[in-house]
């Protein structure tokens, strides 16, 4: 018997699991189109490597991540690529993202597969590469690329590998049904992961409300060293950190990852995908998804191709539109409401709940916090939910961070028990988002400062170099002058007149006089304009308009001169300049009109005032 520990807090919500466990997993069939988001994992989005109109085979790679963290996307069936476009994706924002749309041809023709018959003879890196190429990312929720997770840093040896079969959230039964029907494959996947990590202990954590799954697993795990640990049912025992605490008694340090204490958790669905990728060479193109809720007549689990639209899936389960009140993706505790059923199933979609109004009613209006501390008792992370709520609401994010806001796993236990129906988790999510935005902005500001300072330094350096060169030139000139003078003196002494220098001096004088005259003229025109300005300065907007006009005219002039230059040089940007000049003509005209109008209105008001 495995020794078990307990974690603090937790709740016991109504399970609602029986609805979807009454029948075996069935295939969802082939929808008309499959929409495959390019980002179904944490990290960089994948880039499409097919063109519109291409025919692809089942299991063919259609998008991959070349730089950075990520996994490829594969065609779930054979067909033609219809488009690569922005489509609504399952995301709490309800926004769109880049997706590949595949039109199935119905032949379901496989691309050549290369299974690994005996992975134990191979290098671990090769096996990890096969897992990456199969497009496997964690199927429990977050979607972290599995190959990266299976390669912990060298100094962090994984001693305990945990397979998470707790599935503690109400309604969801995808893992439960997979364990009942696919226990052998799960154990096979677990053995591959155990072979990669070489842990001292492999534990399968499963809640005691799944007796069929437990017996199936016990049978499948016979003869292996896998411990099957049956844990008491309590939400959120399936949370990674909670399960680790239950099975090992250790706590993941704040801000750390399980590998820091030598533990790793993997999901049941991920184990199946790993086994399929290695033993059969099949990439991740389908998953088990629960469709449940009282607004479907035939709830149950489906083997769904990735990319299947949710509305198609709901139709398979017998959706009753009149009863449907809210569509939730994921569980009722941590999932989010879908705004449209036209989004596809992705690698992390474990459950769709089509709920009636009585099943998942609209949240009750928020009432003031009465400091009952029920949230603190329910919190599985031993945080202080009411303090976090207070600081998140007030925007005092540094204080919220100080109280370990980022350790919150957003399980929703606090919101569930809150007698004032405060949507606590939403406050925490918003605060986390705001803090992340601020951090990103701070980073950007720091970079901007660095760049600004580097630029200042560069400008200064250039200035100094210029100065240096100028000095050198002056020095050289002075030397040349001295030499010349010496020569002239020598020539003088020899009796030759130095007439040309006098002539040059006269020329210089003349040029100076010309320049002065020009300057005076300019000053006069300036004075004139300022006079006119002064005359028509009763309203400040006229002033602004005049400034605008002057700017526009000046710009037009520069542009015209540039255009002439360009024409003279026969440069290739003549056309662009011409376009710009015509545009600016318009602008000048507009500015003039606006100015005239403003003047008129001012004149009108002036007369009005004199009249009155």
């Amino acid at each position, binding site marked *: 018997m495995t020794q078990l520990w307990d974690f603090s807090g937790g709740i016991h919500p109504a399970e609602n699991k029986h609805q979807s466990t009454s029948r075996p997993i069935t295939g969802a069939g082939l929808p008309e189109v499959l929409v495959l988001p390019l980002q179904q994992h944490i990290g960089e989005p994948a880039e499409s490597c097919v063109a519109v109109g291409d025919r692809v085979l089942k299991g063919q790679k259609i998008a991959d991540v070349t730089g950075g963290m990520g996994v490829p996307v594969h065609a779930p069936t054979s067909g033609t690529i219809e488009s690569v476009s922005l489509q609504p*994706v399952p*995301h*709490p*924002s309800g*926004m*769109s*993202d880049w997706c590949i749309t595949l039109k199935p041809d119905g032949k379901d023709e496989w691309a050549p597969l290369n299974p690994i018959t005996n992975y134990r003879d191979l290098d671990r890196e090769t096996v990890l590469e096969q897992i990456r190429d199969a497009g496997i990312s964690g199927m429990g929720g977050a979607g972290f690329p599995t190959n990266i997770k299976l390669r912990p840093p060298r100094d962090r040896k994984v001693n305990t590998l945990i397979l998470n079969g707790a599935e503690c959230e109400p309604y969801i039964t995808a893992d439960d049904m997979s364990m009942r029907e696919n226990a052998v494959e799960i154990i096979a996947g677990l053995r591959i992961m155990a072979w990669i990590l070489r842990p001292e202990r492999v534990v399968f954590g499963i809640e005691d409300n799944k007796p069929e799954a437990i017996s199936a697993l016990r049978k499948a795990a016979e003869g292996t060293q896998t411990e099957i640990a049956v844990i008491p049912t309590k939400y959120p025992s399936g949370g990674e950190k909670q399960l680790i605490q239950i099975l090992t008694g250790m706590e993941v340090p704040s801000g750390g990852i399980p590998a820091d204490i030598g533990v790793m958790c993997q999901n049941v669905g991920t184990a199946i995908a790993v086994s399929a990728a290695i033993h059969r060479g099949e990439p991740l193109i389908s998953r088990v998804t629960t469709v449940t809720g009282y607004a479907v007549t035939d709830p149950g689990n489906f083997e769904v191709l990735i990319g299947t639209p949710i509305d198609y899936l709901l139709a398979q389960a017998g959706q009753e539109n009149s009863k449907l009140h809210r569509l939730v993706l994921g569980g009722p505790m941590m999932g989010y409401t879908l705004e449209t059923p036209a989004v596809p199933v992705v690698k992390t979609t474990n459950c769709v709940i089509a709920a009636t109004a009585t099943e998942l009613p609209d949240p*009750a*209006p*928020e*009432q003031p916090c009465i400091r009952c501390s029920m949230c603190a008792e329910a919190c599985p992370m031993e945080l202080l939910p009411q303090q976090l709520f207070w600081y*998140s*609401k007030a925007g005092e994010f540094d204080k919220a961070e100080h109280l370990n806001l980022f350790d919150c796993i957003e399980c929703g236990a606090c919101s569930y028990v809150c007698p004032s129906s405060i*949507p606590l988790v*939403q*406050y925490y*999510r*918003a*605060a*986390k*988002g*705001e803090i*992340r*935005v601020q951090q990103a*902005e701070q980073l*950007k*500001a*720091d*970079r*901007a*400062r660095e*760049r*600004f300072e*580097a*630029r*200042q330094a560069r400008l200064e350096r250039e200035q100094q170099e210029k100065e240096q060169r100028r000095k050198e030139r002056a020095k050289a000139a002075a030397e040349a002058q001295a030499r010349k003078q010496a020569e002239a003196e020598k020539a003088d002494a020899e009796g030759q007149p130095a007439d040309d220098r006098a002539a040059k001096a006269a020329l210089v004088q003349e040029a100076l006089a010309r320049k002065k005259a020009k300057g005076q003229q300019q000053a006069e025109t300036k004075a004139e304009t300022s006079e006119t300005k002064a005359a028509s300065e009763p309203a400040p907007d006229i002033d602004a308009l005049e400034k605008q006009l002057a700017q526009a005219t000046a*710009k037009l002039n*520069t*542009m015209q001169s*540039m255009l002439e230059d360009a024409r003279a040089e026969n*440069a290739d*940007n003549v056309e*662009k*300049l011409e*376009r*710009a000049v015509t*545009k*600016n003509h318009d602008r000048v005209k507009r500015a003039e009109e606006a100015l005239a109008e403003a003047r008129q209105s001012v004149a009108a008001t002036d007369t009005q005032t004199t009249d009155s």
Partner: protein
Amino acid sequence: MWTSILIAVLVLLALAVVFGGLLGFAAERFRVEGNPLVDQIDSMLPQTQCGQCGFPGCRPYAESIANGDAINKCPPGGETTIKALADLLDVEPQPLDAEHGVEQAKRVAVIREDECIGCTKCIQACPVDAILGAAKHMHTVIESECTGCDLCVEPCPVDCIDMITVEPDIRSWTWTPPKSGVIATDRQGANA
């Protein structure tokens, strides 16, 4: 008796010399260059280097604030910056001074590339070197480095630079706090 007085005086003298030396050494060894307050203020400014405050960059404004200037002259920083500065300097937060501009959503400069004539004027104007290009070749803005300061728009002779407001996309999206402001009994009244 005289000896004990002498001993006391000598001991105190020796102590004075030792501590004086220590303090003198520390003052030299741990000397702080510049005003640390300026650095703190500077780190709170948004570093757009836009000059809307009337100073040539964020640091000069930070220096001016350290010398007692108003804290409400920075439109890109807006309310958040004013609040942070007020906290740091322990003064009352003031509303943004409209004379220096209004707070706007985050923007970036975008060059309409087919209209660019390659004059390099915007490159010289950019305070953070976020514009790339060479004489008579097309220029472009490195979006991730652009601070949205607006300074490149004016010098462009063909007006091919637009300031585009950054729209939130799926990757920059964050949860919004729940809407409140209506107390429970009000809403029930509205529904009835």
